[in-house]
Protein backbone atom coordinates (compact mmCIF):
# COMPACT_ATOMS: atom_id res chain seq x y z
CA UNK A 1 0.00 0.00 0.00
CA UNK A 2 1.45 3.31 -1.01
CA UNK A 3 0.64 5.99 1.49
CA UNK A 4 0.04 9.58 0.62
CA UNK A 5 2.44 12.14 2.09
CA UNK A 6 -0.52 13.81 3.74
CA UNK A 7 -1.45 10.61 5.48
CA UNK A 8 2.10 10.06 6.63
CA UNK A 9 2.21 13.51 8.14
CA UNK A 10 -1.15 12.90 9.77
CA UNK A 11 0.21 9.73 11.38
CA UNK A 12 3.23 11.61 12.70
CA UNK A 13 1.03 14.40 14.04
CA UNK A 14 -1.33 11.94 15.68
CA UNK A 15 1.49 10.01 17.32
CA UNK A 16 3.02 13.18 18.80
CA UNK A 17 -0.36 14.44 19.96
CA UNK A 18 -0.97 11.16 21.68
CA UNK A 19 2.38 11.35 23.48
CA UNK A 20 1.41 14.70 24.89
CA UNK A 21 -2.18 13.76 25.62
CA UNK A 22 -1.17 10.65 27.54
CA UNK A 23 1.37 12.66 29.52
CA UNK A 24 1.70 10.45 32.56
CA UNK A 25 1.50 7.20 30.66
CA UNK A 26 4.19 8.52 28.35
CA UNK A 27 6.30 9.35 31.36
CA UNK A 28 5.76 5.87 32.82
CA UNK A 29 6.65 4.10 29.57
CA UNK A 30 9.68 6.25 29.00
CA UNK A 31 10.86 5.59 32.55
CA UNK A 32 10.45 1.86 32.07
CA UNK A 33 12.44 1.99 28.86
CA UNK A 34 15.07 4.21 30.45
CA UNK A 35 15.68 1.94 33.42
CA UNK A 36 15.80 -1.15 31.28
CA UNK A 37 18.07 0.28 28.64
CA UNK A 38 20.36 1.65 31.32
CA UNK A 39 20.68 -1.81 32.83
CA UNK A 40 21.02 -3.42 29.43
CA UNK A 41 23.65 -0.87 28.43
CA UNK A 42 25.74 -1.33 31.55
CA UNK A 43 25.42 -5.09 31.40
CA UNK A 44 26.30 -5.24 27.74
CA UNK A 45 29.33 -3.03 28.28
CA UNK A 46 30.44 -5.28 31.14
CA UNK A 47 29.76 -8.40 29.15
CA UNK A 48 31.59 -7.27 26.06
CA UNK A 49 34.58 -6.22 28.12
CA UNK A 50 34.55 -9.52 29.93
CA UNK A 51 34.40 -11.23 26.61
CA UNK A 52 37.30 -9.16 25.41
CA UNK A 53 39.27 -10.03 28.54
CA UNK A 54 38.41 -13.67 28.04
CA UNK A 55 39.65 -13.58 24.47
CA UNK A 56 42.76 -11.75 25.56
CA UNK A 57 43.43 -14.38 28.18
CA UNK A 58 42.63 -17.20 25.81
CA UNK A 59 44.94 -15.80 23.21
CA UNK A 60 47.63 -15.35 25.75
CA UNK A 61 47.73 -18.98 26.74
CA UNK A 62 51.10 -20.15 25.62
CA UNK A 63 53.53 -22.77 26.84
CA UNK A 64 57.17 -22.55 27.56
CA UNK A 65 59.06 -25.50 26.18
CA UNK A 66 62.48 -25.64 27.89
CA UNK A 67 65.29 -27.28 26.00
CA UNK A 68 67.97 -29.47 27.60
CA UNK A 69 71.18 -27.56 28.11
CA UNK A 70 73.21 -30.12 26.21
CA UNK A 71 71.13 -29.86 23.04
CA UNK A 72 73.07 -28.88 19.93
CA UNK A 73 72.08 -26.02 17.69
CA UNK A 74 70.92 -28.39 14.90
CA UNK A 75 68.87 -30.43 17.35
CA UNK A 76 67.17 -27.26 18.45
CA UNK A 77 66.48 -26.36 14.83
CA UNK A 78 64.95 -29.73 14.03
CA UNK A 79 62.95 -29.66 17.26
CA UNK A 80 61.53 -26.31 16.24
CA UNK A 81 60.54 -27.71 12.84
CA UNK A 82 59.03 -30.73 14.45
CA UNK A 83 56.89 -28.72 16.86
CA UNK A 84 55.82 -26.31 14.13
CA UNK A 85 54.61 -29.25 12.07
CA UNK A 86 52.34 -30.50 14.81
CA UNK A 87 48.72 -29.96 14.02
CA UNK A 88 47.13 -27.22 16.06
CA UNK A 89 50.30 -25.26 16.61
CA UNK A 90 49.94 -21.64 15.70
CA UNK A 91 53.44 -20.36 16.34
CA UNK A 92 56.78 -21.45 17.71
CA UNK A 93 59.17 -18.73 18.78
CA UNK A 94 62.69 -19.59 19.77
CA UNK A 95 64.19 -17.59 22.58
CA UNK A 96 67.79 -18.21 23.60
CA UNK A 97 68.87 -18.09 27.22
CA UNK A 98 70.74 -14.86 26.51
CA UNK A 99 67.59 -13.21 25.25
CA UNK A 100 65.72 -14.52 28.23
CA UNK A 101 68.27 -12.97 30.56
CA UNK A 102 68.08 -9.61 28.77
CA UNK A 103 64.32 -9.50 29.20
CA UNK A 104 64.76 -10.52 32.83
CA UNK A 105 67.21 -7.65 33.38
CA UNK A 106 64.77 -5.35 31.62
CA UNK A 107 61.96 -6.19 33.93
CA UNK A 108 63.74 -6.73 37.24
CA UNK A 109 66.64 -4.33 37.04
CA UNK A 110 70.39 -4.32 36.86
CA UNK A 111 70.98 -6.62 39.82
CA UNK A 112 69.96 -9.46 37.52
CA UNK A 113 72.98 -8.54 35.41
CA UNK A 114 75.18 -10.55 37.72
CA UNK A 115 73.80 -13.70 36.16
CA UNK A 116 75.56 -12.70 32.96
CA UNK A 117 78.68 -14.47 34.26
CA UNK A 118 76.90 -17.77 34.57
CA UNK A 119 73.51 -17.80 32.89
CA UNK A 120 71.27 -20.26 34.80
CA UNK A 121 68.45 -20.06 32.27
CA UNK A 122 67.62 -22.43 29.46
CA UNK A 123 66.87 -21.91 25.82
CA UNK A 124 63.18 -22.25 25.19
CA UNK A 125 60.40 -22.27 22.61
CA UNK A 126 57.32 -20.24 23.22
CA UNK A 127 54.56 -22.33 21.65
CA UNK A 128 51.09 -21.10 21.00
CA UNK A 129 48.17 -23.32 20.05
CA UNK A 130 45.71 -22.24 17.38
CA UNK A 131 42.94 -23.17 19.78
CA UNK A 132 43.97 -22.47 23.38
CA UNK A 133 41.99 -25.54 24.45
CA UNK A 134 44.49 -27.69 22.60
CA UNK A 135 47.31 -26.48 24.84
CA UNK A 136 47.16 -29.44 27.17
CA UNK A 137 47.23 -32.07 24.41
CA UNK A 138 50.13 -30.36 22.67
CA UNK A 139 52.04 -30.06 25.93
CA UNK A 140 51.74 -33.78 26.61
CA UNK A 141 52.87 -34.57 23.11
CA UNK A 142 55.86 -32.21 23.14
CA UNK A 143 56.86 -33.54 26.55
CA UNK A 144 57.63 -36.92 24.96
CA UNK A 145 60.22 -35.49 22.56
CA UNK A 146 63.89 -35.91 23.24
CA UNK A 147 65.96 -33.02 24.48
CA UNK A 148 62.96 -31.41 26.11
CA UNK A 149 63.63 -30.57 29.70
CA UNK A 150 60.17 -29.39 30.66
CA UNK A 151 56.91 -28.00 29.31
CA UNK A 152 55.21 -25.39 31.39
CA UNK A 153 51.78 -23.86 31.15
CA UNK A 154 49.14 -22.98 33.67
CA UNK A 155 47.84 -26.54 33.85
CA UNK A 156 44.50 -26.91 35.56
CA UNK A 157 44.14 -23.18 35.98
CA UNK A 158 43.43 -22.81 32.29
CA UNK A 159 40.62 -25.32 32.34
CA UNK A 160 39.16 -23.61 35.33
CA UNK A 161 39.44 -20.24 33.65
CA UNK A 162 37.68 -21.47 30.53
CA UNK A 163 34.91 -22.91 32.62
CA UNK A 164 34.46 -19.68 34.57
CA UNK A 165 34.42 -17.60 31.43
CA UNK A 166 31.88 -19.87 29.82
CA UNK A 167 29.57 -19.67 32.81
CA UNK A 168 29.80 -15.91 33.19
CA UNK A 169 29.12 -15.41 29.50
CA UNK A 170 25.99 -17.51 29.70
CA UNK A 171 24.78 -15.83 32.85
CA UNK A 172 25.31 -12.42 31.23
CA UNK A 173 23.41 -13.42 28.11
CA UNK A 174 20.49 -14.73 30.16
CA UNK A 175 20.41 -11.54 32.24
CA UNK A 176 20.36 -9.29 29.20
CA UNK A 177 17.69 -11.37 27.56
CA UNK A 178 15.60 -11.27 30.72
CA UNK A 179 15.93 -7.52 31.00
CA UNK A 180 14.89 -6.96 27.40
CA UNK A 181 11.91 -9.21 27.85
CA UNK A 182 10.82 -7.35 30.97
CA UNK A 183 11.11 -4.04 29.14
CA UNK A 184 8.99 -5.23 26.24
CA UNK A 185 6.40 -6.48 28.67
CA UNK A 186 6.34 -3.15 30.51
CA UNK A 187 6.04 -1.11 27.34
CA UNK A 188 3.45 -3.39 25.90
CA UNK A 189 1.43 -2.97 29.08
CA UNK A 190 1.73 0.79 29.26
CA UNK A 191 0.79 1.19 25.63
CA UNK A 192 -2.07 -1.18 26.19
CA UNK A 193 -3.43 1.18 28.83
CA UNK A 194 -3.24 4.14 26.47
CA UNK A 195 -4.96 2.04 23.85
CA UNK A 196 -7.76 0.90 26.13
CA UNK A 197 -8.44 4.58 26.68
CA UNK A 198 -8.67 4.97 22.92
CA UNK A 199 -10.63 1.83 22.23
CA UNK A 200 -13.62 3.78 21.06
CA UNK A 201 -11.47 5.73 18.67
CA UNK A 202 -10.10 2.54 17.12
CA UNK A 203 -13.59 1.07 16.94
CA UNK A 204 -14.89 4.14 15.12
CA UNK A 205 -11.93 4.21 12.79
CA UNK A 206 -12.65 0.60 11.87
CA UNK A 207 -16.36 1.31 11.42
CA UNK A 208 -15.81 4.16 9.01
CA UNK A 209 -13.50 1.96 6.95
CA UNK A 210 -9.96 2.69 8.09
CA UNK A 211 -7.51 0.00 7.10
CA UNK A 212 -5.67 -1.87 9.81
CA UNK A 213 -2.42 -0.14 8.97
CA UNK A 214 -4.06 3.23 9.16
CA UNK A 215 -5.08 2.44 12.72
CA UNK A 216 -1.82 0.76 13.63
CA UNK A 217 0.79 3.20 12.35
CA UNK A 218 0.19 6.08 14.79
CA UNK A 219 0.48 3.64 17.70
CA UNK A 220 3.56 2.08 16.19
CA UNK A 221 5.14 5.51 15.83
CA UNK A 222 4.15 6.37 19.37
CA UNK A 223 5.90 3.24 20.59
CA UNK A 224 8.99 4.13 18.61
CA UNK A 225 9.06 7.64 20.12
CA UNK A 226 8.73 6.14 23.58
CA UNK A 227 11.68 3.89 22.85
CA UNK A 228 13.73 6.71 21.38
CA UNK A 229 13.08 9.12 24.23
CA UNK A 230 13.73 6.34 26.70
CA UNK A 231 17.11 5.72 25.07
CA UNK A 232 18.42 9.27 25.53
CA UNK A 233 19.32 9.05 29.19
CA UNK A 234 20.89 5.58 29.02
CA UNK A 235 23.01 6.64 26.06
CA UNK A 236 24.28 9.70 27.92
CA UNK A 237 24.83 7.76 31.13
CA UNK A 238 26.62 4.84 29.52
CA UNK A 239 28.82 7.20 27.52
CA UNK A 240 29.88 9.24 30.55
CA UNK A 241 30.29 6.15 32.67
CA UNK A 242 32.33 4.29 30.14
CA UNK A 243 34.44 7.32 29.42
CA UNK A 244 35.40 7.57 33.07
CA UNK A 245 35.99 3.85 33.45
CA UNK A 246 38.09 3.86 30.32
CA UNK A 247 40.13 6.86 31.47
CA UNK A 248 40.69 5.14 34.79
CA UNK A 249 41.46 1.64 33.56
CA UNK A 250 43.38 2.30 30.38
CA UNK A 251 46.65 3.58 31.90
CA UNK A 252 46.55 0.90 34.56
CA UNK A 253 46.17 -1.89 32.03
CA UNK A 254 48.74 -0.54 29.63
CA UNK A 255 51.30 -3.25 30.24
CA UNK A 256 48.84 -6.01 30.83
CA UNK A 257 47.82 -8.46 28.17
CA UNK A 258 44.19 -7.77 29.14
CA UNK A 259 42.84 -4.62 27.54
CA UNK A 260 39.66 -2.67 28.01
CA UNK A 261 37.71 -2.02 24.78
CA UNK A 262 38.72 1.21 23.06
CA UNK A 263 36.38 4.09 23.85
CA UNK A 264 35.70 5.36 20.35
CA UNK A 265 34.39 2.52 18.28
CA UNK A 266 32.93 0.77 21.29
CA UNK A 267 30.83 3.64 22.57
CA UNK A 268 29.25 4.13 19.15
CA UNK A 269 28.48 0.47 18.87
CA UNK A 270 26.90 0.20 22.29
CA UNK A 271 24.93 3.43 21.82
CA UNK A 272 23.65 2.20 18.48
CA UNK A 273 22.65 -0.99 20.22
CA UNK A 274 20.80 0.88 22.97
CA UNK A 275 19.01 3.03 20.40
CA UNK A 276 18.03 0.03 18.34
CA UNK A 277 16.81 -1.83 21.40
CA UNK A 278 14.74 1.20 22.39
CA UNK A 279 13.11 1.40 18.98
CA UNK A 280 12.53 -2.32 18.82
CA UNK A 281 10.96 -2.71 22.23
CA UNK A 282 8.83 0.39 21.64
CA UNK A 283 7.58 -0.78 18.26
CA UNK A 284 7.11 -4.35 19.36
CA UNK A 285 5.32 -3.34 22.54
CA UNK A 286 2.80 -1.18 20.73
CA UNK A 287 2.37 -3.66 17.90
CA UNK A 288 1.46 -6.39 20.34
CA UNK A 289 -1.04 -4.27 22.22
CA UNK A 290 -2.83 -2.85 19.17
CA UNK A 291 -3.23 -6.29 17.66
CA UNK A 292 -5.91 -7.26 20.13
CA UNK A 293 -8.03 -4.20 19.41
CA UNK A 294 -7.96 -4.48 15.65
CA UNK A 295 -10.30 -7.43 15.50
CA UNK A 296 -13.36 -5.23 15.27
Amino acid at each position, binding site marked *: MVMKARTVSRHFRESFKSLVRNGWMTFASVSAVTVTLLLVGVFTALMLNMNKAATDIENDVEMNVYIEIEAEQETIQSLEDEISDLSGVESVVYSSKEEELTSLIDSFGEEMALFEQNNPLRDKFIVKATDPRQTERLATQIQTYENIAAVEYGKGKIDQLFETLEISRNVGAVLIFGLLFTAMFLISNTIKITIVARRKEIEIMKLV*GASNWFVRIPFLLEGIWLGLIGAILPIAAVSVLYYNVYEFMQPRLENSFIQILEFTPFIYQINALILLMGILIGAWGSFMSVRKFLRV
Partner: protein
Amino acid sequence: MIQMKQVYKKYSNGVMAANGLNVTINPGEFVYVVGPSGAGKTTFIKMMYREEKPTKGSILVNNVDVGPLKRKRVPFLRRNIGVVFQDFKLLNRLTVFENVAFALEVIEEPPKIIKDRVMEVLDLVGLKHKARMMPDELSGGEQQRISIARSIANRPKIVIADEPTGNLDPETSWEIMNLFEEINSRGTTIVMATHNREIVNTIRHRVIAIENGLIVRDEQRGEYGYEG
Protein backbone atom coordinates in the same frame (compact mmCIF):
# COMPACT_ATOMS: atom_id res chain seq x y z
CA MET B 1 -28.25 -4.27 -2.79
CA ILE B 2 -28.35 -6.66 0.16
CA GLN B 3 -29.21 -10.29 -0.34
CA MET B 4 -29.09 -13.00 2.32
CA LYS B 5 -29.39 -16.67 1.47
CA GLN B 6 -29.75 -19.32 4.14
CA VAL B 7 -27.69 -17.40 6.64
CA TYR B 8 -26.86 -19.06 9.95
CA LYS B 9 -24.92 -17.63 12.82
CA LYS B 10 -23.86 -19.59 15.84
CA TYR B 11 -21.87 -17.79 18.53
CA SER B 12 -19.09 -19.56 20.36
CA ASN B 13 -21.29 -19.75 23.46
CA GLY B 14 -23.76 -21.86 21.49
CA VAL B 15 -26.40 -19.18 20.88
CA MET B 16 -28.01 -19.40 17.45
CA ALA B 17 -28.61 -15.78 16.42
CA ALA B 18 -29.51 -16.56 12.81
CA ASN B 19 -31.39 -19.69 11.83
CA GLY B 20 -31.55 -19.51 8.07
CA LEU B 21 -32.21 -15.92 7.06
CA ASN B 22 -33.42 -15.25 3.52
CA VAL B 23 -34.03 -11.68 2.50
CA THR B 24 -33.50 -9.25 -0.35
CA ILE B 25 -33.29 -5.51 0.22
CA ASN B 26 -33.42 -3.40 -2.94
CA PRO B 27 -31.62 -0.14 -3.64
CA GLY B 28 -33.39 2.88 -2.19
CA GLU B 29 -35.55 0.90 0.22
CA PHE B 30 -36.24 1.91 3.80
CA VAL B 31 -36.48 -1.14 6.03
CA TYR B 32 -37.35 -1.42 9.71
CA VAL B 33 -36.03 -4.44 11.56
CA VAL B 34 -38.15 -5.22 14.59
CA GLY B 35 -38.24 -8.00 17.15
CA PRO B 36 -37.79 -8.69 20.85
CA SER B 37 -34.44 -8.20 22.52
CA GLY B 38 -32.10 -11.11 21.82
CA ALA B 39 -34.05 -12.16 18.73
CA GLY B 40 -31.11 -11.58 16.42
CA LYS B 41 -31.80 -8.05 15.13
CA THR B 42 -28.36 -6.75 15.92
CA THR B 43 -26.66 -9.85 14.54
CA PHE B 44 -28.73 -9.47 11.36
CA ILE B 45 -27.45 -5.92 11.00
CA LYS B 46 -23.89 -6.56 12.09
CA MET B 47 -23.43 -9.28 9.51
CA MET B 48 -24.13 -6.74 6.75
CA TYR B 49 -21.06 -4.69 7.51
CA ARG B 50 -19.08 -7.71 8.61
CA GLU B 51 -18.75 -6.94 12.25
CA GLU B 52 -20.03 -10.48 12.63
CA LYS B 53 -19.27 -13.28 10.22
CA PRO B 54 -22.02 -15.73 9.27
CA THR B 55 -21.38 -19.35 10.19
CA LYS B 56 -23.14 -20.54 7.03
CA GLY B 57 -24.83 -19.02 4.00
CA SER B 58 -24.10 -16.06 1.78
CA ILE B 59 -24.64 -12.33 2.26
CA LEU B 60 -24.29 -10.25 -0.87
CA VAL B 61 -23.72 -6.54 -0.32
CA ASN B 62 -23.31 -4.65 -3.59
CA ASN B 63 -22.87 -8.05 -5.22
CA VAL B 64 -19.95 -9.01 -3.01
CA ASP B 65 -20.26 -11.96 -0.64
CA VAL B 66 -19.11 -10.44 2.63
CA GLY B 67 -18.86 -13.74 4.51
CA PRO B 68 -15.62 -15.01 3.03
CA LEU B 69 -14.26 -11.48 2.64
CA LYS B 70 -10.61 -11.24 3.65
CA ARG B 71 -9.93 -9.10 6.70
CA LYS B 72 -7.89 -6.76 4.53
CA ARG B 73 -10.91 -6.09 2.30
CA VAL B 74 -13.36 -5.36 5.12
CA PRO B 75 -12.46 -1.64 5.35
CA PHE B 76 -13.44 -1.22 1.70
CA LEU B 77 -16.82 -2.83 2.34
CA ARG B 78 -17.40 -0.44 5.23
CA ARG B 79 -16.65 2.58 3.10
CA ASN B 80 -19.87 1.81 1.24
CA ILE B 81 -21.91 1.49 4.40
CA GLY B 82 -22.64 4.19 6.95
CA VAL B 83 -23.43 3.07 10.49
CA VAL B 84 -25.36 4.87 13.20
CA PHE B 85 -25.65 3.64 16.77
CA GLN B 86 -27.85 4.20 19.77
CA ASP B 87 -24.90 5.63 21.72
CA PHE B 88 -23.70 7.93 18.88
CA LYS B 89 -20.04 6.85 19.18
CA LEU B 90 -18.60 10.31 18.87
CA LEU B 91 -15.10 11.23 20.02
CA ASN B 92 -15.36 13.74 22.82
CA ARG B 93 -11.89 15.11 22.35
CA LEU B 94 -12.66 16.21 18.79
CA THR B 95 -14.89 19.05 17.67
CA VAL B 96 -18.09 18.42 15.76
CA PHE B 97 -16.29 19.25 12.53
CA GLU B 98 -13.39 16.94 13.32
CA ASN B 99 -15.71 14.09 14.25
CA VAL B 100 -17.31 14.18 10.82
CA ALA B 101 -14.03 14.85 9.03
CA PHE B 102 -12.58 11.77 10.74
CA ALA B 103 -14.60 9.48 8.47
CA LEU B 104 -13.13 11.14 5.40
CA GLU B 105 -9.60 11.38 6.74
CA VAL B 106 -9.28 7.67 7.25
CA ILE B 107 -10.15 7.08 3.61
CA GLU B 108 -7.51 9.65 2.68
CA GLU B 109 -9.62 12.30 0.99
CA PRO B 110 -7.86 15.60 0.20
CA PRO B 111 -8.32 18.28 2.91
CA LYS B 112 -10.16 20.66 0.59
CA ILE B 113 -12.74 18.05 -0.33
CA ILE B 114 -13.07 17.02 3.32
CA LYS B 115 -13.79 20.58 4.40
CA ASP B 116 -16.45 21.14 1.77
CA ARG B 117 -18.13 17.82 2.29
CA VAL B 118 -18.18 18.12 6.09
CA MET B 119 -19.84 21.52 5.90
CA GLU B 120 -22.29 20.12 3.35
CA VAL B 121 -23.44 17.25 5.58
CA LEU B 122 -23.47 19.41 8.70
CA ASP B 123 -25.75 21.75 6.79
CA LEU B 124 -27.95 18.81 5.84
CA VAL B 125 -28.40 17.81 9.48
CA GLY B 126 -28.86 21.46 10.42
CA LEU B 127 -25.83 21.86 12.66
CA LYS B 128 -23.46 23.82 10.46
CA HIS B 129 -23.37 26.61 13.05
CA LYS B 130 -22.12 24.22 15.75
CA ALA B 131 -19.17 22.87 13.79
CA ARG B 132 -16.65 24.22 16.28
CA MET B 133 -18.36 22.92 19.39
CA MET B 134 -17.45 19.79 21.30
CA PRO B 135 -19.91 16.86 21.30
CA ASP B 136 -20.56 17.02 25.04
CA GLU B 137 -21.76 20.60 24.65
CA LEU B 138 -24.62 19.33 22.49
CA SER B 139 -27.91 17.65 23.31
CA GLY B 140 -28.45 13.95 22.64
CA GLY B 141 -30.46 14.66 19.51
CA GLU B 142 -27.79 16.96 18.19
CA GLN B 143 -25.12 14.38 18.90
CA GLN B 144 -27.10 11.78 17.00
CA ARG B 145 -27.41 14.18 14.09
CA ILE B 146 -23.64 14.58 14.09
CA SER B 147 -23.21 10.84 13.99
CA ILE B 148 -25.66 10.65 11.09
CA ALA B 149 -23.70 13.36 9.31
CA ARG B 150 -20.57 11.28 9.81
CA SER B 151 -22.26 8.12 8.50
CA ILE B 152 -23.23 9.76 5.21
CA ALA B 153 -20.08 11.85 4.78
CA ASN B 154 -18.48 9.55 2.23
CA ARG B 155 -21.73 9.05 0.33
CA PRO B 156 -22.42 5.41 1.19
CA LYS B 157 -25.16 3.60 -0.71
CA ILE B 158 -26.41 2.01 2.49
CA VAL B 159 -26.93 3.43 5.97
CA ILE B 160 -27.41 0.94 8.78
CA ALA B 161 -28.80 2.21 12.06
CA ASP B 162 -29.06 0.18 15.24
CA GLU B 163 -31.79 1.74 17.40
CA PRO B 164 -30.80 5.29 16.54
CA THR B 165 -33.62 6.77 18.63
CA GLY B 166 -33.15 4.43 21.58
CA ASN B 167 -31.58 7.11 23.79
CA LEU B 168 -33.70 10.04 22.67
CA ASP B 169 -36.95 11.57 23.83
CA PRO B 170 -39.98 11.21 21.50
CA GLU B 171 -39.81 14.69 20.05
CA THR B 172 -36.12 14.43 19.21
CA SER B 173 -36.74 10.97 17.77
CA TRP B 174 -39.09 12.45 15.21
CA GLU B 175 -36.46 14.95 14.15
CA ILE B 176 -33.98 12.14 13.68
CA MET B 177 -36.54 10.16 11.69
CA ASN B 178 -37.16 13.13 9.42
CA LEU B 179 -33.46 13.22 8.77
CA PHE B 180 -33.41 9.55 7.81
CA GLU B 181 -36.40 10.15 5.55
CA GLU B 182 -34.52 12.98 3.90
CA ILE B 183 -31.43 10.80 3.37
CA ASN B 184 -33.60 7.98 2.03
CA SER B 185 -35.35 10.32 -0.37
CA ARG B 186 -31.96 11.05 -1.92
CA GLY B 187 -31.63 7.38 -2.86
CA THR B 188 -29.73 5.90 0.07
CA THR B 189 -30.87 2.50 1.29
CA ILE B 190 -31.68 2.50 4.99
CA VAL B 191 -31.84 -0.50 7.31
CA MET B 192 -32.94 0.44 10.80
CA ALA B 193 -33.37 -1.77 13.83
CA THR B 194 -35.87 -0.21 16.21
CA HIS B 195 -38.12 -0.74 19.20
CA ASN B 196 -40.17 2.37 18.55
CA ARG B 197 -43.73 1.27 17.77
CA GLU B 198 -45.04 4.77 17.19
CA ILE B 199 -42.43 5.59 14.59
CA VAL B 200 -42.89 2.33 12.69
CA ASN B 201 -46.65 2.70 12.67
CA THR B 202 -46.56 6.35 11.61
CA ILE B 203 -43.79 6.58 9.04
CA ARG B 204 -44.74 3.46 7.11
CA HIS B 205 -42.05 1.38 5.46
CA ARG B 206 -41.20 -2.24 4.92
CA VAL B 207 -41.03 -4.12 8.23
CA ILE B 208 -38.92 -7.22 8.80
CA ALA B 209 -39.73 -8.94 12.09
CA ILE B 210 -37.13 -11.26 13.51
CA GLU B 211 -37.63 -13.81 16.24
CA ASN B 212 -35.32 -16.61 17.34
CA GLY B 213 -33.01 -15.88 14.45
CA LEU B 214 -35.75 -16.23 11.85
CA ILE B 215 -37.70 -13.75 9.77
CA VAL B 216 -41.26 -14.27 10.98
CA ARG B 217 -42.83 -11.47 8.98
CA ASP B 218 -41.80 -9.32 6.04
CA GLU B 219 -44.36 -6.73 4.98
CA GLN B 220 -44.34 -3.64 2.79
CA ARG B 221 -45.75 -0.67 4.72
CA GLY B 222 -46.12 -2.99 7.69
CA GLU B 223 -46.98 -2.33 11.27
CA TYR B 224 -44.88 -2.71 14.35
CA GLY B 225 -45.13 -6.06 16.05
CA TYR B 226 -43.94 -9.62 16.13
CA GLU B 227 -45.56 -12.84 17.14
CA GLY B 228 -45.03 -14.27 20.60
